[in-house]
């Protein structure tokens, strides 16, 4: 005869053998047994991974969206992040005493990690208006968004066209699409030397000569230093490099930074949100990454495409004492040489990024 205790013990033992659902694991039972399916492995936390976070700040005590960025590096250096000084003081556990509006540069890998304040754009509204020669005004369509958000019922972007056409510049009506969307871009920037050409007309007795001179500009490099900078902007606009005609006309202005688009953060509203609504804690944020690996950066100068090659004359004149004088005499010539090189586009310092 089996005692009740023994029977109950057996039941308990078998019950204890059942698989239960755990973290990233799903049990499956069948008549033949039970199996465990492990979910896909968690994604690798790659450099530059953006983690949006609702956080109380000095400017918005009730909270605002900020972005923390996982450690990333450019040329082995982590970028600087500009954040409100008072918020940094709170992060560090000290009393905020800095004046409001003042900001501090914090390296991305410092602890506690700095954050970027999001600055939003609305990709649903129409773009700028342009007038045609015959007086018609056309409005550009809305920027739009990845198809992924269409499934959530985001309002359609504004359609473009002649502003007098019905519906032009407005979102097409769709009662199933009642959500709003906002976007913010995160950009990495490296300062570099820029150049600016200027044109001068010289009136020489019976003929006019045009002289195109090049001014080397390094304001950004002096202000920001050689370290990369990470910032959040409503919209990433790549710097426009001058075209050959600009250089031919002597009006070329080469930018002083090279920027790369790291990520776009999209904010998705709850259903039935007003088009003018501001992003608040009820919105869901998604990060779309454009860069996943650490970066290297080199200007054309650094990569060997341009190498200043000043004229030098080394002679054992007066036992070498005359060398500084020779250098001084050659200096204006070298300046001219550099200007000619710039004009011939050999002094474009435009840099390139690559990943490692």
């Amino acid at each position, binding site marked *: *005869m*089996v*005692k009740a205790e*023994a*029977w109950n*013990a*057996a039941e*308990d*033992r*078998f*019950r*204890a*053998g*059942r*698989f*239960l*659902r*755990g*973290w*990233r*694991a799903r*049990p499956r039972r069948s008549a033949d047994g039970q199996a*465990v399916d*492990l*979910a896909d*492995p*968690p994604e*690798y936390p790659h450099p530059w991974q953006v983690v949006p976070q609702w956080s109380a700040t000095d400017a918005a005590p009730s909270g605002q969206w900020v972005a923390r960025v996982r*450690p990333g*590096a*450019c*040329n*082995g*250096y982590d970028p600087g992040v500009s954040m409100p000084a008072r918020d940094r003081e709170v992060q560090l556990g000290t009393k905020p005493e800095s004046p409001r509006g003042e900001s501090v540069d914090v*390296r991305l*890998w410092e*602890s506690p990690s700095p954050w970027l304040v999001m600055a939003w754009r609305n990709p649903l509204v129409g773009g700028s208006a342009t007038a045609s020669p015959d007086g018609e005004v056309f409005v550009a369509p809305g920027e739009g968004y990845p198809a992924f958000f269409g499934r959530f019922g985001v309002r359609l972007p504004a359609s473009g066209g002649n502003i007098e056409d019905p519906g032009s510049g407005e979102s097409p009506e769709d009662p199933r699409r009642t959500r709003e969307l906002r976007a913010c871009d995160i950009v990495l920037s*490296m*300062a*570099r030397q820029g150049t600016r050409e200027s044109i001068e007309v010289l009136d020489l007795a019976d003929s006019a000569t045009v002289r195109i001179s090049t001014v080397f500009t390094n304001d950004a*490099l002096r202000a920001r*230093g*050689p*370290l*990369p900078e990470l910032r959040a902007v409503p919209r990433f606009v790549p710097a426009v490099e001058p075209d050959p005609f600009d250089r031919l006309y002597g009006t070329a202005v080469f930018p002083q930074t090279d920027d790369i688009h790291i990520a776009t953060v999209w904010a998705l509203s709850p259903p039935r949100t007003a088009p003018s609504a501001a992003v608040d804690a009820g919105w869901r944020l998604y990060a779309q990454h454009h860069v996943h*690996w*650490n970066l*290297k*950066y*080199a*200007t054309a100068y*650094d*990569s*060997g495409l341009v*190498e200043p090659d000043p004229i030098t004359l080394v002679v054992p004149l007066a036992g070498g004492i005359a060398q500084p004088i020779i250098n001084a005499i050659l200096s204006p010539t070298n300046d001219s040489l550099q200007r000619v090189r710039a004009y011939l586009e050999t002094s474009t310092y435009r*840099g*390139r990024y*690559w*990943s*490692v």
Partner: protein
Amino acid sequence: MIPGEEISAARIQALLDESRRSRTLRGHMTATRQLPHGVIVSAERAGFPWLHPWRPVVVGARGASIRPGSVNGVEATIRGVPLRGRIEAGQVPPVLQWGDASKLKMRPDGRGFIAVEVACAEDWTVLTAEMVQVAALDTEDGTYDESAELEPAPGGVRGISGRRAREAVAIIRLTSRGKIEALPLAHFDLKHRVRLEPGEPESKRKHFFW
């Protein structure tokens, strides 16, 4: 069991023994937790690390092991031993030793590099790739030169004597608690080339890694 047959205590005991043998045990990259009503099976939280090339793992305070990586197909080594070890010779994967935390070569901002130092042949092909711990990539002994201003961070690395050049594959730093932390910079095997400008002295040549 035949219908009508009595269940003896011995049979129940045998069943219990069988049940014990069917216990769920923790396997590779999984965690189990026994509860009265079942076993919670989970994936290991810290599991599934991506073992990419050059992945550094700090070993105590004295060194770091580095996952195998290569430069132009030349496998990196520590003191001549490949990062994957030499199984046939009984050599386990080596550890890059720096002694203790006070011996780390660091910049004033409290950071240093784990770098791969390549030595090139006359035609600039890579001969060897040796792991080193340095504070600066372009000084002979790898120490930080305080007299040198911080240059605009170059994408190319200036070479050093002996047709050598270093590329950082990880950053190491001391945390506020004094713990050594390594953050990977390179995630893939590397390629290398040298900028060859006519007449440029060897020491001024820039080395590019990608």
